[in-house]
């Protein structure tokens, strides 16, 4: 659907050239919600703007449904852009036009007959839940409502692709949720391919199927959202996830010594991550039954990623070294991701 191949972008600025994108290649499948996450200045906006050539890559090609749009002339490109909707952080609505006229704008550009415009705009405003606001001006709307107008406008000419550049970054958490829900609904209903740019892992977790982490103009990591969440490879990815999942050790353990080797009266701390079905299985209780170990629960959370349960535990195993190793082998056989933190004194957490 969307193929970015060896994209380079160098900006000429007063302070010298800025290498904003370095050899970026991405493949985005039809119907997918593809998230691109990165810190400020990582090159996210530049990247998404290369997809509809609002920014022309210095090198590389952008292919959309088999057509190389970097090779198109201006009028071909304008036609191609009608198949790619875009929404923006600051909405970019026409302030002197009503909600209706804003949504009608792309249709007027292609000289759609008036009655067709009327029915299409009405249908779109219905879909985004703003049927009663048709005659209002953007200044009379809340941020969330403005973004809904932006979405309706972006969909007016029936695009197959929707690009979202920080579409929820100017909105409060509640409104963010409702806009994300809307994007997800549209994606399902219209089989739309969606590219979402964000600096918040929450957004990725909420709606994306795939994710690419971009760092200083380079793709640091990419893959299925679930895989990236469970086995993040790069420090920057772990950073993004930790914000969301409170990956930190519980307060009690932060100031005590954690050793690599067992010692007198020590217990083994480990972090377990459960995905999908296994999150609901009683693995810990069967572990304790099967082996001669005791397991103290120090931290537990149950989250969900795109509807899949996602559980996280920190437990302390107590028992002989042999039993502990047997228990660890058992855990490895389960569909559980296990990460050893280290040995701590049993008394450090005695009040648990």
């Amino acid at each position, binding site marked *: 659907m969307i193929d970015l191949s060896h994209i380079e972008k160098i900006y000429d600025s007063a302070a010298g050239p800025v290498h904003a994108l370095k050899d970026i290649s991405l493949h985005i499948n039809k119907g997918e919600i593809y998230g691109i996450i990165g810190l400020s200045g990582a090159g996210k906006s530049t990247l998404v703007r290369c997809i*509809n050539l*609002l920014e022309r890559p210095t090198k590389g090609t952008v292919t959309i449904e088999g057509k190389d749009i970097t090779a198109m002339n201006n009028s071909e490109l*304008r*036609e*191609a*852009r*009608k198949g*790619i*909707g*875009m929404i*923006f952080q*600051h909405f*970019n*609505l*026409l*302030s*002197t*036009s009503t909600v209706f006229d804003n949504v009608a*704008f*792309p249709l*007027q*550009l*292609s000289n759609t007959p008036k009655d067709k415009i009327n029915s299409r705009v009405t249908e779109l405003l219905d879909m985004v839940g703003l049927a009663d606001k048709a005659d209002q*001006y*953007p*200044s009379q709307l809340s941020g969330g409502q403005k973004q809904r107008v932006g979405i309706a*406008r972006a969909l007016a*000419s029936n695009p197959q692709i929707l*690009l979202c550049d920080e579409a929820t970054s100017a909105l409060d958490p509640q409104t963010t949720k409702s806009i994300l829900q809307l994007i997800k609904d549209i994606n399902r209903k219209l089989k739309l391919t969606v590219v979402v740019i964000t600096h918040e892992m929450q957004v990725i977790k909420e709606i994306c199927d795939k994710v690419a982490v971009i760092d200083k103009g380079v793709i640091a990591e990419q893959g299925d959202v679930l895989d990236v969440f469970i086995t993040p490879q790069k420090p920057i990815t772990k950073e993004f996830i930790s914000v969301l999942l409170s990956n930190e050790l519980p307060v009690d353990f932060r100031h005590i010594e954690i050793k690599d080797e067992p010692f007198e009266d020590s217990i083994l701390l480990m972090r377990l991550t459960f995905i999908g079905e296994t999150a609901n299985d009683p693995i810990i209780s069967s572990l304790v039954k099967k082996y001669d170990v005791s397991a103290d629960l120090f931290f537990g959370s149950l989250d969900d990623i795109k509807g899949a349960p996602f559980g996280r535990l920190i437990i302390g195993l107590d028992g002989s070294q042999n039993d502990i190793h047997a228990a660890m082998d058992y855990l490895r056989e389960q569909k559980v991701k296990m990460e050893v933190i280290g040995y701590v004194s049993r008394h450090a957490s005695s009040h648990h």
Partner: protein
Amino acid sequence: MSADMLPLITKALGETVYMVVVSMIISSILGIPLGVLLHTTSKGQILECLPINRVVGAIVNAIRSIPFIILMVAIIPLTRLIVGSAIGTTAAMVPLVLASVPFIGRQVETSLREIPYGIVEAAQSMGATPLQIIRKVFLPEAMPNIVAQLTTVIISLIGESAMAGAIGGGGLGDLAIRYGYQRFRPDIMIATVIVLIIMVQIVQFAGNKLAKHLDKR
């Protein structure tokens, strides 16, 4: 107040209104596109073309730096060429237009520059042509500001038309000089000034109202 005053003032007012209205219409027709050209050919804009931008900008600056009274006299040959005579109400409109076009151009350019570029990009992302962006984004979005600025242009045209009148163009300025000053008629001088003040007030008031009505921000 003497009996001759009313017809004198009415006639002069008619001439002033004629000069201002007609030169305003012609100046807008030429000045608004000039403003669009100045803005859209500037750096980073949709029709970026720096050579054109610099040349046109320099001409605009040059004309704007000539005081109106000098411009008026300096272009007498041009005026003669265009209207066949250098004297009269119609002839007075040539320097009025010449002075207003660059003024409007710069004003419109300023209004357009205030439009967030994001709106232009949104239009581009929807496949709008440069002409569509000018007609459907730039002009409507800047209209409240343009109206406010054209109001200022009308007011300076009223002042300039009085000057033009003084060198034989008719209108209120001509009346004030010929009767109020040269024939020692302070009543006419005062009446002319009052009429001018009222005119400016009405224009400013109407302009403000219209700009406010158009402004939906």
